Structure formats: C-alpha cells, structure tokens
C-alpha cells in the first residue's frame, strides 16, 4: 500500500532527471573558530573538505566536541564558517533554506501547534493550499506511524514520538538534503532502534541525501553509505570509510554479518588511536 503521495504526484510539473553521481554538498576547506571570552580562541573545525553525492546517506562520526554538529550547522546555513565555503548544488550557502531540512536532537517542535499544525507549517509557509497541505501532512504523519495523534500537542508525546513528528515536519517541505543532528541521541535504546529502522525504510523510498551526525559507531555503520570519522581539537576528518553493505538493510541480519562487525570494530579502533593521540604532549 502506498501511504504517501510521491513527489511527482504532488508536484506534477517538477520532474528533475536524476543524475546518480551528481554532487549535492561540497565542503571546501571550511574552518570554524569560536571566540571565547578571556581564554584563547577555540579552533572547532580545521580545513574540512568533503563532497557528498546526491542520494547518499553520509554519517559524521566523532567524539563530543569534535565540531561535527558545527559542520552540520554550516551546511544548514545556521552558522557561517570563519573560513572556506560550503556549497549545495553548486551554490555557496549563505543562510538556511528549504532545500536543507534539519532534524535536531532537541526536536525543536513548535509546542503551540498540534502534530498536524507542526507538519503543515512548512508546506503552508511555501504557499501550499491548506487542503493540500493537510492531506500531505496527514499522509506523512501516517508514514511515521503517528496516525491518530494528529491533534495532540507536543507536550503530550513521548521523546520518540516527538522525533517522528520532527522528521515528518521536515519531510513535509521536500528538502533535497536531510540534516540530522544526533536525532536519536536523546532516546532510549529500544526507541532508538525502532526509529533507525523506520528512518531507513522511509529513506529507501526516495533516497534523499542525508547528512547524519552521531557519536554511535553502530548507528553510523548500520545507516550509512559513507562514514566520516572526525577527531577533535581541532576538528579534522581522520578518515572516510565507504560502508559496502547491501541494501535494504535488516538490522537482525546485519548484526550477524561479519562485514558489519568488522566495520564497527575497525572504526572503534580508530577512536582508541585518537584517544591516545590526545594523551601525547
């Protein structure tokens, strides 16, 4: 059963020819310095360069304080880099825009709006007529598994449900890129697993470009085509690992797959090295 009208049904005029290997995001020698009062300036990101192809699921993995969220905020246009430039579809990023949809760990739902009101907010802002916006939003709410909760307020929902609403709210305005900032970081292990599975199922339908920030190695390997491992102080890319595991992925199968296990162990070893690096003078 098809739950959600595909993009082509919603906007029949727009039918872009899909170029599988087209570059979606280009991060070109981006540095970020934070001025701290009193102490010396903190170099959060140092000359980061990264290219992300259209339709790729890319995770940025690193210890806390490595600047991985900052990198995501720069792509989102919420933070301007101190040096370097980030581009989306070849255009330099100067601010936020509906082509890049964020999903935050803190959910950041509008508490005065119902679930439906939250999801409709983006389409309404983009001038979609109320009737259409509502129909699309109801379909999305059903897709993220919250049918029946349309008129609940965010305060009445659990953390996992809030994050489902946040995902639906962002998908509702059809961003080309999903920017996910440790989206499942505040959830318990069980809810986290369920949301990971659901996110993969949703992603399989239209294969949007996803930039996914996490500090969980398993999560990064399970979800991604590519894992960008970062080190801290200053934030640098240590290594980029292509995750060559078949899709669609099933968590239960994957956990038994020696290739999956090897990716996880290899990446965890990298962090051991990084920790030792930090201990050296």
């Amino acid at each position, binding site marked *: 059963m098809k739950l959600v009208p595909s993009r082509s049904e919603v906007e029949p005029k727009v039918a872009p020819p899909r170029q599988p290997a087209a570059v979606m995001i280009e991060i070109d020698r981006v540095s970020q310095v934070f001025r701290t009062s009193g102490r010396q300036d903190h170099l959060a990101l140092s000359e980061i360069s990264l290219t992300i192809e259209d339709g790729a699921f890319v995770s940025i993995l690193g210890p806390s304080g490595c600047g991985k969220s900052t990198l995501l*905020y720069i792509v*989102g*246009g*919420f933070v301007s880099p101190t040096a370097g430039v980030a581009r989306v579809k070849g255009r330099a990023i100067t*601010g*936020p*825009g*509906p082509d*890049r*949809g*964020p999903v*935050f760990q*803190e959910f*950041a*739902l*509008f*508490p*005065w*709006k119902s679930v439906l009101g939250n999801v409709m*907010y*983006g389409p309404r*802002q*983009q001038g979609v007529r109320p009737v259409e916006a509502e129909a699309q939003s109801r379909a999305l709410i059903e897709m993220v598994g919250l049918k029946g909760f349309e008129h609940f*307020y*965010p*305060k009445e929902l659990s953390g996992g449900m809030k994050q489902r609403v946040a995902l639906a*709210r*962002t998908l509702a*305005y059809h*961003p080309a890129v999903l920017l996910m900032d440790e989206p499942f970081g505040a959830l318990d292990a069980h809810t986290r697993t369920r949301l990971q599975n659901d996110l993969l199922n949703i992603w399989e339908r239209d294969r949007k470009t996803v930039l996914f920030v996490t500090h969980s190695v398993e999560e990064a390997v399970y979800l991604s085509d590519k894992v960008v491992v970062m080190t801290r102080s200053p934030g640098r890319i240590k290594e980029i690992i292509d995750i060559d595991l078949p899709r669609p992925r099933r968590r239960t199968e994957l956990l038994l797959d020696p290739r999956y296990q090897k990716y996880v162990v290899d990446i965890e070893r990298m962090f051991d090295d990084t920790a030792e690096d930090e201990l050296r003078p």
Partner: protein
Amino acid sequence: MSGRALLSRSAPWLACLGLLGVWQIGALILNTDSFPTAWEAVRAIPSILGDKESLINILASLRRMAIGFGVGVIFSIPLGLMMGRSRGVASFCNPLLMVIYPVPKAALMPIIMLWLGVGDVAKTLVIFLGVSLPVIYHSFQGAKAVEEKMLWSGAAMGLSAAQRMTRIVLPAALPEILTGCRTGLVLALITMVTSEMIARQSGAGNILFNALDMGQYDTVYAMIIIIGAMGIGLDAAFENMRGRLVKWSEPGFDIPLSFA
C-alpha cells in the same frame, strides 16, 4: 461532583467569607468608629454602586486603567521581545529600565502632574508605567528562552527574521508574556488607585480618600471591598483567557488562586 472537588471549587469563596467573618469579630471586639464591622461596610456597597456620581467615578477609573494597561501591553511586548532576541537592544534598554523599575510609579505622579496636569493623561501615563515594566521584563525573559533550534527550524522553512519574531518568538514566549501581563494587571489597579489618591479629581481612589477625609469609614471600607473585588474579577477573567491561550504549554503554570 465529589465532595473533595466541591470543596476545592468553593475554597476561594470560603476564604473570602472567612476573612469577612474574622473582620466582623475583630471589629466587634475593638468597637471603634474608625473600624466599622464587615457587615456595615458591605451594607454601604449598594449605596455607592447605586449612586450615579460614584458609578461615573469608578467607570472613569476603569477606563483609565484599561487604556493604560492596553497601551502598556502593546508597547511592552514588542520591546521585550526585541530585547530578548537582540543583545544590542537589551544592553541599551536594560540600564534605562533598571533605573525606572524600583521607583514607585506613584512617586512620579507629582512630577507628571506638573507637566500634564491632574487629568486623565497624567494618571493613564502612571498606569502605563506601572504596567510596562513587568510586561517588558517577562517578554524579555520569554524571548531569551526561545530555543535557538526552533528558530532555525523556522528559518529552514523559509520564515524571514520578522516572521520568526511574530510567528515563533511571540507564541513560544506567550506563557511567560502572559505571566507578566497578569502582574501588570494587578499593578495597573494599584497605580490606578494611588494616582487618584495623589491627583484627587475623580475615580475610585478619589471616593475612598474623600470619604476618609470626611470620616465616613463605612464608605472607606466599602470602597476597599469594591477595589478588591475588581482585582479578583479582573484576575479571574484574565486567568480564564490565559488558560485558553496557552493550554498547549507545560503544566505548572497554574497559580491556584483564582475564581476562574
């Protein structure tokens, strides 16, 4: 309705009756002319409210209060929100407000009277000043506490800076703003009476202090009851409206002193 629910619903009324009862007993024991019994005071209320002159005075008070409160709120909410979202505006306005905040607004009345006379404008201005500061302060706090990422989410949807202010900061800060407005409403009533105490010309405060001068103590206490009842009534009406506006907000905002 269970007995417990009935009791908690009638509690505010019982409290008021209890207060009148204690007053009645206290006045009977003291037995002085300057402290009438509760019954004498209550009995004087119909004659005040039945008197056209008094009614015009009280309505004039309420009109000044409504104007002062309304203008105060309309002026203060945008200012407070801007202060909350802009460090520059906040550091410019904060010292100015901190100078004005501790000054009793009624103490400004003589100066304001020198400029504007004893009429409506001077009194309304004092009410405006009394209302503004708590509303500015709470709007400021409310706007400052708005989650950055909520604004980012709005920006990603294409909301301009002005739209984020009116469509995200304003509703997100509304519970805090309305807390300020509630304080402002009470202060409006207080400054209304004190302004009329200083600029004796008309109003509820004028009736009260004229009666005091003439030794009509039952009228004095009746006016105190009327002003108190106005306070309770306005607060209950306001709480009713607030409850409906911010029903989406976290629980814990209810202050259980209300007839609503």
